[in-house]
Every structure is written in C-alpha cells, then in structure tokens.
C-alpha cells in the first residue's frame, strides 16, 4: 500500500544575513537537513525532539507554509500523485483542501476580529465549496463533531477557553474534510485535563473522518498515547523511527535512550536516573562533523566524529541513524512505570 505522503531528502535552510541593508549571506540555519519519511494512510506519526530540533519547521515545510530549500514531497491522493514542491500558488491553495494544520497556540491562531462561524466557514467560502445554508450546515456539522455548541457560532474567540479555542482550531482545519493534518504541538498550550480531552477528540475524529496525522509534540507520554509510529528528531535530522512500543522499550539510538530515561514515573518512590546529556545543543548553522550527536553521546568514538551515519533499517520498520545500533545495548523506558507504560499497553490492546 502506498503511503499517503512521501518525504524525500527534505531540507529547509534559513539564510543568516549580516548587515541590515546590503547583507551578505554568511551561512544557513539548517532547520531541516535531509529528512526522508513516509507517512502511512490512516496512521498517526509522532514527531518528537527537543526545542529547536526542527520539528515545527518540518511540519510546516510539508505543507509549504515554510518554503523547503530542497527535497521532494509527494502526496498520493486516490489515483493521483501530487508533487507538492512543484505547485504554484493556485495549485497550493487547491492542495490545502487536502492538507491542513492545527496550531500550538489556541490564542494566536484565531483571528480575534471574526466570529467563530466566519473563522470556520472561511475556507468553504473562499474556495467556493459551499455558501449560504449549505455552508452553515457543514460548519454546524463539524462544530458538533468537535464537541462545540452550534449556538455559540456567533461569538468571538475571546469568549472561549483555551480548550474550546483549540476545538475551534480543529474544526477549522477539518471543515474542508482534508485527508492529512499536521498537528503542531496541539496540546502543549493546554491544561493537563484539557490535554486528554483534545487527544481523545483527535482520536475520535481520526476514526470518523479517516484522517492521517503528523503529530508533533515533546510530551512523550502524550505521544505514546496518540501515535502508531514515532520519529525522533535531533538537529534537523531523523535519528530513529519505529513503532511506538519498539521505540519506547527498545530504543536503538543513544539520543532516544536519553529521552526515554527522562520520562517521569508515576511512582514517587521509584529511583529515577535520567541520562543527563553533557553540553549544549550544537548550533544548527554549524552542525558537528560526522554524527551530529557525537558531541553529547556517551558511546561516541573516533568513527562517530568523522563519518555521518545514515538512517537504515535495523529491524522490520525500525530505522536508526547510528553506527553502533546493532551492537549497543540500550535501556528503554522502565517497565515498572505506570502512565506512559499503560498508554502503550492500551495501544497494543487496541491494535490487537
């Protein structure tokens, strides 16, 4: 079965200019530097990594909200392959009916000067998909599905709480019935209790509307709960990609190991020994030679400093970019833990 989206060697570089007027480009911030992943139809692909690793840029570059520097993005709609990077402005507007974005900040992503009805219905109107009573019916339908009261459509965003605003944002993204949604940290700005509601809502909508998600987050417990597969990003590159439970329990990359060791445990007496990475995240405009992680990796040797590892399959569907992926014995998430552990178990049960 073909994936819904194929990303091949995607690069997003931002030029660094010196001097305000006659600036010369003195370098590039390599926000995304050679990412290749497939996003399968109907799955939720998690994308995790620390701040500044390029998660958001990758998510936006797939939609061409941020213009990629190089690479290929192919969207496989039914019987039709679309080269996203070759589209002109009109083509982009048309393809955005199939691909949408849910934002992190529910306060910044809604125009405070428009009613909820206008915000949600705008895409139907400007794309000429529906108007009048038909538009109203579609808006009401999606609003109900997102757990909002259709009575409140005449209100302005300021009258809603953060969780409700995020529901409005989701309704706006879904009103044109797209196939693919980039969820850019959709829950990190919300309260704990609301996070769970929004996660469940996204799950329900995925089942009802046959959606595919690229789920960007840094909350590993939420990712475990929401995602089928997870990709780990470090300094603009994917270092590991695997099924959620493989990645969490048997990580093959030292960076993933460090991430997993930092998941909090829901037991106050548990001994917690997170692996503390030495040093700072390197400058993405001047990445380290060889393996980008070697400056902070406790297993690194001379080879890691010179040779860059490629993302390769170590087991079925388990991709790692590490020279020693098959020889290192890395510890995953602690089995005795609750919380995240239970979420994965639950997922395993669902999939069975």
């Amino acid at each position, binding site marked *: 079965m073909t994936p819904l989206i194929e990303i091949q060697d995607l690069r997003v570089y931002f030029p660094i200019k010196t001097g305000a007027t006659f600036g010369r480009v003195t370098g590039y911030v390599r926000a995304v530097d050679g990412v290749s992943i497939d996003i399968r139809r109907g799955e939720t692909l998690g994308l995790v990594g620390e701040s500044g690793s390029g998660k958001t840029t990758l998510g936006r570059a797939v*939609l061409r*909200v941020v213009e990629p520097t190089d690479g290929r993005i192919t969207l496989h709609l039914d019987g039709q392959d679309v080269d996203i990077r070759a589209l002109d402005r009109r083509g982009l507007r048309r393809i*955005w009916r199939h691909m949408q974005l849910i934002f992190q900040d529910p306060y*910044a992503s809604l125009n405070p000067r428009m009613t909820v009805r206008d915000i949600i219905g705008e895409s139907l109107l400007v794309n000429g998909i529906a108007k009048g009573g038909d538009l109203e019916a579609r808006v009401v339908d999606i609003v109900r599905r997102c757990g909002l009261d259709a009575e409140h459509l005449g209100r302005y965003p300021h*009258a809603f709480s953060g969780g409700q605003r995020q529901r409005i944002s989701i309704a*706006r993204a879904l009103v044109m019935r797209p196939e693919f949604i980039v969820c850019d940290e959709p829950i990190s700005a919300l309260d704990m209790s609301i996070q769970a509601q929004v996660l469940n809502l996204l799950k329900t909508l995925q089942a009802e509307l046959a959606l595919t998600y690229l789920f960007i987050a840094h909350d590993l417990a939420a990712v475990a709960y929401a995602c089928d597969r997870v990709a780990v990003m470090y300094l603009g590159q994917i270092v590991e990609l695997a099924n959620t439970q493989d990645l969490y329990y048997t990580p093959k990359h030292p960076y993933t190991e460090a991430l997993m060791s930092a998941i909090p445990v829901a037991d106050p007496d548990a001994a917690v020994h997170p692996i503390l990475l030495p040093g700072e995240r390197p400058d993405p405009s001047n990445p380290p030679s060889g393996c980008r992680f070697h400056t902070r990796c406790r297993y690194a040797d001379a080879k890691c400093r010179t040779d860059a590892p490629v993302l390769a399959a170590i087991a079925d569907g388990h991709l790692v970019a590490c020279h020693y992926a098959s020889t290192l014995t890395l510890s995953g998430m602690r089995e005795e833990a609750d919380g995240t552990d239970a979420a994965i178990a639950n997922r395993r049960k669902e999939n069975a």
Partner: protein
Amino acid sequence: MTVATPALTRASGDFQRPDVATQWQLMWWRFKRHHMAMIGLGALGLFLFISVFAEFVAPYGPLQRSKSYLGGEPMPIHFFDAQGDFHLRPFVYARVSKRDPVTLRLLPVVDQQRVWPIELFVRGDSYKFWGLIESDLHLFGVKEGFVHFFGTDHLGRDQFSRTMYATRISMSVGIVGVAVSFVLGTIIGGISGYFGGMADMLIMRLIEFIRSIPTLPLWLALSAALPRDWTSLQVYVAITVLLALIGWTHLARTVRSKLLALREEEFVIAARLSGCSDARLVGRHLLPSFLSFLIVDLTIAFPEVLLAETSLSFLGLGLREPAESWGVLLYAAQNIRSIAHMPWLLIPGAFVIVAALAFNFIGDGMRDAADPYAK
C-alpha cells in the same frame, strides 16, 4: 412565554454581552472606563463643535473692531452686582471711556453702576455660515455695549471670536494633515511591509533620510519657498500639505512593522491555508488587526501637526493674517509689550495645550482599549 432573566429585561440597554460583542464594542466599553480619555473626548467634541459652528459661537466677526475698547482686558462674567443683588441673567459691567490724566489717552474704565446683560441667541452682525448661508444669529451677545471675554487686541478685535475662528483653521489643518499622512503612510508603509525586498529597502532609507533632517529648518525652508503673494487660503492649503508630507514617515513605519509582524501570526497562516487570496488576507485579516493601532497613532500624530502649524505660524512662516489660527493669534503675542500689557493675548495658547492633551489622553485610552488581550 419564556421567563427572561432579570439582566436581559433591563431596559436601559447597558447590559453587555461580551461573548457576542464585536471587537469595536469591546474597545468602546474599555475606552469608557478610561476617565481621562473620556474627558479628552469631551474636549475634542467641544473643539469640533466650535470648528463647525465658529460663526455662530463667536459673538463678533474676526476682523470687526471695537473702537472704544482697544487692547481691552477680558471682561469677567458676573451674577452678583456691586450691591450684592443676584441677577438670573449673567452680565458684564459696562465700560466708559476716561482720559488718563498722565498720558492723556482714552482708557476704558469699569462702570459698576451699569450692567450689560448677556443674552442667548441674539441677533448681531450678519455673517455667511461656511460662506453659504446668510445669518445674523449668534449663540450669545449683548444688546447694548460690547462683550469681550478674552479681551481685545491693540486693534480692538474680539479675541474670543478670533479664537473661535482660529479653532476651525487649526483643527482642520490637523485633520487634513493627518488624513493625508494616513493615506500616504498606509500605502507606502503597506508596500514596504507586504512586498519587502528592494522596495522595502528603498522606502526605509527614504524615511530615514527625511527623518534625519531637523524638522524646524526643513519647515522654514519649505514655507519660505511659498510665494509671498499667495492668498491666505492658498498658504493654508500649502502648509497643510507640507506638514503631511513630512508627517507620513512615522505612520509608514508603524504600518510596515505591523504588517511584518502580522504576516507571521498563526491566524494569518491559518487564513492562508484556508485558501484566502492576498487581497482577502490584507483586507479581512491584516488590516483590521492593526487598524486600531493606526487610529491610536493618528490621534497621537494629530497634536504634532497642530503644534507644527502653531510653531510655524508663531514664527511668522505659516499662516498669516487675515487667516486665523492659534499660531497666528500667538504670533501677535510674541513681543514683550504684549506680554506685559496684554497678557490675555496668550489665551489661545491654552487652547493649543488643551487640544494637544485631549488628543494624547484619547490616544492613551484607545491604546489601552485596543489591546484585545488586556486584562
């Protein structure tokens, strides 16, 4: 019949529904809580009324001379006469001319035995309202004698009436100047911010160039270039345009920076993803988002234009008599003789201060009210 909640049945109409209110309504509600701004709005309203109805509010024409009251001091309004009797109708004491025994000049002296009652809606000198409608109705006046609240100048012209006419000119210079600045600033700043690149670079350098020239010498040079034989109306138009040509730079910068910042806002990206065209993006999402900030900027730019006009006229390089503006009136008050003997010629200065403060207060109130996420 449903039972309405008590709040909804309040007939006064001040029941507020913040959830269905538009941004403008919310702004107005917040603005109303700003007391200084409301006072400023009142003062501005008064000035605008005076500007529109200057001929009606002024008891005399601007050039009409009170020959028996040259350089006369302001005449205070009284309710109680010298005997302590209360008059329902306010009055001024009559003046009689007496010869000064030393200088032998005729001087007006207060005669406390006679009063000149002030009446509303009196028929006085005829005028043409806005040069169109002929009338002789004045808001107030006296049937006998004369009334000069702000005194008269050395030619005997009523300072109060002249100040009323000057209000019209000064306010309109401000409004027209700000309006021209607004159009120029929005278009040029809009091009700069929306298209960016080379156009942005050139426009920004041009603005920096204009702003780096010291304003006063620039005004002086430009206004000195105006032909001396122009009528006061031509000079007035020229001065207004002149002030606007310099005033747009600040606004253009604001527009540019707002556009640059808003372009990256998430709701703008969302609108783009929804398929909005450039025109809709600007018209529906970008412009309304910073219109309130622009209005704030305009209110603050207004006193600048006002003060610029006043400064120019005060220096004798702006408007000239017989045109009246606050600056022209103050020009007459700039020699030591005036300040020593006729300090009331400085009264128009108070108008300038009040107008500038009023606009600043309104600007302050609007800035506070315009922030949609203020507490």
